[in-house]
């Protein structure tokens, strides 16, 4: 489903069309879950926050303005709830790679795929080390596919501000992961 169809489903739901909620859930849940998993690095917490995000979307549906994009709004709610939760619980970071693999339900893999998974895990580790503002900007633009204007609105900053944060995140990741890519291949 395209974002436009999602926006229309959200507009219908805001006007009282109850069955539209299932459509919204189907479209939003994988993206919100992936985003929350990156924020929390814990599958159970991500599920809890996902549930709260949808309930908040439901409670705030009367505020939705038809024609507005629903995805950035949903991401903003998810981000706010994740920040609140981390402030409350101050939970320790769990092993994100395990959580992601567990959530994905992956089986033991051949060497090439394992190597890709290790690289992915290393990337996630480096991403988690970034300051929250840079990480969010990077995730929203590079992984969620939001425009810089949408990401800026979600993060409550300016377009140039979000570009700068994403650029800094990109540079940090490149510095940290450069050794992996620059490593000469084995003969």
């Amino acid at each position, binding site marked *: 489903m395209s974002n436009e169809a999602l926006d229309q489903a959200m507009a219908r739901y805001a006007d009282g069309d109850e069955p539209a909620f299932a459509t919204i859930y189907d479209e939003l849940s994988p993206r919100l879950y992936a985003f929350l998993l990156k924020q929390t690095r814990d599958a159970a917490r991500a599920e809890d926050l996902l549930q709260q995000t949808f309930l908040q979307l439901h409670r705030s549906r009367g505020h939705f*303005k038809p024609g507005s994009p629903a995805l950035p709004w949903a991401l903003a709610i998810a981000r706010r709830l994740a920040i609140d939760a981390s402030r409350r619980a101050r939970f320790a970071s769990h092993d994100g790679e395990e959580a992601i693999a567990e959530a994905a339900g992956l089986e033991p893999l051949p060497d090439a795929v394992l190597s890709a998974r290790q690289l992915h895990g290393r990337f996630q580790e480096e991403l988690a080390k970034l300051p929250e503002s840079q990480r969010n900007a990077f995730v929203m633009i590079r992984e969620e596919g939001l425009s810089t204007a949408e990401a800026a609105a979600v993060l409550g900053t300016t377009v140039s501000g979000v570009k700068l944060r994403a650029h800094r995140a990109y540079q940090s990741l490149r510095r940290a992961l450069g050794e992996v890519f620059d490593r000469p291949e084995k003969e």
Partner: protein
Amino acid sequence: MVPSGDMKARLLAAVQAEAAPTRAERRRAAGGILALVVGALALQFFGVLFLLDKKGLHLQPQAIDFVVSHALGERPVAFVAMTSLAWCAVIAVLAGLVRRRDMLGPPSVALWTAALASLALPFAVGLVGNGIWPVTAVAKPTHPGFFCVHLSLALSTLPLTALVFVRRESDPVHPLALGATVGALAATVSALLVNLDCPYADPRHILIGHIAPGLAQIAAGALMGGLVIAMRRRGAPLPIAPVLGGALGSWLASLYNVGLQKSCDRPSGFEPQTIIWLVAGLLLGVGIGFAAGMLRARPRPT
């Protein structure tokens, strides 16, 4: 990456169990609340103009020509029109920012800038007016502006509280900045009304009587934004009762102060008891609201 399979069913059951207002219902409720506030503001404003004088509350309304000439003072009509237009322009911009065209609105820095500039711009227009009509710039030491402080607070508290209530739990990004903008909107609405009523226009009086209460309302708006406009975790209590109680208490105290100041011998002098009334009203309201919230939240025996 997908969440567990039964979550969809659980969520569908949860949203069916929890009623949430639709757009039309929310708009009707917000329209009703704002209409009530506009009515209350009009009653307050015309009550102060027509029913209050130095002898206190009058049951016989004062004549319109007396009220108009008293409100104008030495200010030319063009000066009043120019400054009122400046306040109206700022109100229009702030109302647009609070209403928003999309779900997330402009960045925080834009909201804070608009909130603070909303008071600076009309003040600058007033200074230009002082330059054009020097008679308006002559300071009146007997009227430093304390009456206008109380009138501003009395006129802005209801719209601030109503707007914060209408926007409750709606901003996931920058509730403090939106609250400050709401505070600025309420402050500018009251500043427009005070500008129509107050015959004094020297910069010192304007700063003390018309701008300073606006800054206080911006700060109060930011505080209420963080408490009420912010989206929060499900189950986390919304401190709506203490906020409403505090607003109601300070509003009643401001109204009392307006009457007290206008009916006492020194109508615009600094009266320490008015500050005491204001703080007492605020604290009493917060306390009653807090207690009411606690009683409501207490589980009932089955």
